[in-house]
């Protein structure tokens, strides 16, 4: 099996697994307890907080542990919205191709009377700082733009966008779930006010994440109960998960350049190989792209069938974004970069990492080429394209 769906989730690293183990049976105390045994867990928790903060270049108290990226996105956006609303500011700027954790939270706020502006991401999948500058109004309370897109892997000019926000005194949040551990993230250098992280995207465990919020930005609790996380996130802390995440994050950040140097040539080999398939096109710009992301659209193909047959050939890939039922909707990301509906349905996302070999890449290229040819041969839609009854979307 070749697992080429690392944007969906990753295998845990041995370092991360080992970092978790003591907290299951040795140091299993509750960090909120009074006795020394619980305090041991509390110390471990605070040690993790400091180490995560060091990776992001912020202060430990600016770190809140959450159940993952979605919760962090929800809490960030809701907090900034409530903070803004107190001052009568109820306008939020985002983009059309955010993760649903962001888009659906914004939709809920819209129902409450917030006004949402979604910026165009162009065919490149990139937003510009100028767009943000033009969209900011006096009543704008938040700009939330993802660091890197989960489907097409484009990396946004976050530092420049955040600089505009800082100048205009608007809170800037970024969903950095796909970026952290893969590209350099430094909240001070990049002017970021709030940022969301998910551990299982960088070889950490599932079910744990981080919300960074610069001091001075009051967080609204979305899970109410005990006073854990300084009263901003109730629930006994997931110490094992947090320890695993911390170890994985340190490892990923330490090896970030080395991993990118290994992954990028493999990614480009894969792109070059798939580019040979006629009437297909890479989605998103090649220049500003996550090291492991490849995303193609093929004409005359249904993404669903493509995935089924790749599964049969032992290649785990995705099309559109995974949703709870495991079925595929036409990707809102591909529609946002202007792909027509029928082409957006025929998309393929392959997300690799530093552990791939050239042999793996060549196997994927061969498998995808075979499956695309097979499916096109039995597709009436493709026949229409070939005999000219229907126009091609792509030039070649």
């Amino acid at each position, binding site marked *: 099996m070749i697992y080429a769906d690392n944007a969906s989730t990753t295998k845990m690293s041995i370092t991360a697994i080992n970092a978790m183990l003591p907290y299951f049976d040795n140091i299993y105390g509750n960090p909120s307890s009074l006795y020394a045994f619980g305090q041991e867990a509390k110390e471990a928790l605070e040690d993790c907080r400091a180490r995560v903060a060091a990776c992001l270049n912020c202060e430990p108290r600016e770190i809140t542990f959450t159940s993952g990226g979605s919760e962090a996105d929800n809490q960030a956006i809701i907090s900034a919205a409530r903070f803004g609303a107190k001052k009568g500011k109820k306008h939020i700027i985002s983009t059309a191709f955010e993760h649903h954790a962001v888009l659906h939270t914004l939709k809920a706020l819209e129902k409450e009377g917030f006004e949402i502006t979604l910026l165009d991401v162009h065919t490149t999948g990139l937003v510009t700082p100028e767009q943000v500058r033009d969209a900011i109004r006096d009543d704008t309370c938040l700009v939330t733009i993802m660091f890197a897109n989960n489907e097409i892997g484009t990396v946004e000019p976050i530092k420049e966008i955040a600089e505009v926000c800082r100048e205009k005194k608007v809170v800037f949040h970024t969903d950095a779930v796909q970026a952290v551990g893969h590209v350099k993230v430094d909240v001070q250098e990049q002017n970021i006010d709030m940022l969301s992280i998910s551990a299982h995207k960088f070889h950490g465990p599932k079910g744990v994440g981080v919300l960074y919020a610069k001091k001075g930005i009051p967080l609204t609790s979305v899970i109410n109960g005990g006073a854990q996380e300084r009263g901003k996130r109730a629930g006994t802390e997931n110490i094992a998960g947090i320890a695993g995440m911390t170890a994985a994050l340190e490892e990923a950040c330490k090896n970030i350049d080395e991993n990118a140097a290994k992954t990028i040539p493999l990614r480009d080999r894969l792109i070059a190989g798939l580019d040979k398939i006629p009437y297909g096109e890479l989605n998103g710009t090649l220049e500003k792209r996550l090291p492991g992301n490849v995303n193609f659209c093929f004409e005359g193909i249904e993404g*669903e*069938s493509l995935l*089924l*047959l790749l*599964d*049969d050939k032992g290649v785990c890939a995705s099309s559109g974004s995974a949703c*709870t*039922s*495991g*079925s*595929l*909707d*036409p990707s809102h990301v591909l529609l946002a970069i202007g792909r027509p509906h029928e082409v957006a349905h025929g998309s393929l996302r392959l997300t690799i990492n530093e552990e791939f070999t050239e042999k793996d890449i060549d196997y994927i290229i061969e498998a995808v080429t075979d499956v695309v040819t097979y*499916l096109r041969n*039995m597709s009436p839609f493709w026949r229409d394209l070939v005999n000219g009854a229907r126009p091609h979307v792509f030039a070649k």
Partner: protein
Amino acid sequence: MKALIAMSGGVDSSVAAYLMKSQGFDCIGCTMKLFDNKDEQISQGKTCCSLEDVEDARSVAFRLGMPYYVFNFTGDFDKKVIDNFINCYEKGMTPNPCIDCNRYMKFDGLYERAKVLGCDYIVTGHYARIEKHGEKFVLKKALDSTKDQSYVLYSFNQEQLAHTMFPLGELTKVQTREIAEQNGFINASKPDSQDICFVPDGDYARIIEERTGKVYPKGSFVRKDGSVLGEHKGIIHYTIGQRKGLGISAPEPLFVLSINPHNNTVVLGSHEDLFCDELYVSGFNWISGETPRGAFHCNAKIRYRQKEQPATVAPLDNSRIKIKFDEPQRAITPGQSAVLYDGDVVLGGGIIERNDYEQI
């Protein structure tokens, strides 16, 4: 041999999957996602296609050790089933969307997927039988007449029948549930789905109005002679034979006799006015692939829950037929399907036309 099992998450298709697996077929389970119900409050357990049903189907497939996939057919379902449903009501007719769904989703869309996956058969949990008589395949009623679903399957052609299996055709519902219980399927005692899946609360008019964004204008209830009896709330709210919910007080009970979109009226009359012995059917599918040469006598059924009635059938041009019942029938409803039977064998079926077809 490889089989693609259409699994709704209900007990029937789960047992169908089990039976195929035990017969040694190489099985793949799948559920078709037909519409998005995430914004609508779906009452639990009454319809198919909810996320819980997907989980149930997945659990059964996992238990049986078969690969399982969810296919997204929402776009096609919108176009081919829901739009047609709306269109039909707007023409003053009463659609049966389950028949369109079987035709376009299960036995067209799924058939394409089965081909892609290299499957020889599509399998569903319908209660009906397929047999081969000489060179021809025939569709027959289920052995258990109380569960027979052959009425909704008349759109089959020979090629589809050759590649379809109904493993429950010889079982009773009780036997099916027993098999489910013996195998510990979590849905063994799940109730049968009853409603139209995309109209879980029965309020189809609201769904139509929401989808089209139209408000269907009020109009007049009239008698056959044209005299006005009162005001109706838009033609899509009514169906032939309806008595309840008319909001008209009259000395005698009144029933909907016909619905006329061209002048936005709903004609009411007495119970006996509802009876008629003749109807025309269009888009008729002869399952054998051959249209009979002349008129003949057989049984016909004009709604799902009705016993077949003897009738004389005359094939006409353009896939139409004329049916003349031996006895007048109550509330022949345009938009519903008329299905012909020769004993247990389904000859074919089509959609009942409006009797004032030319006026539309």
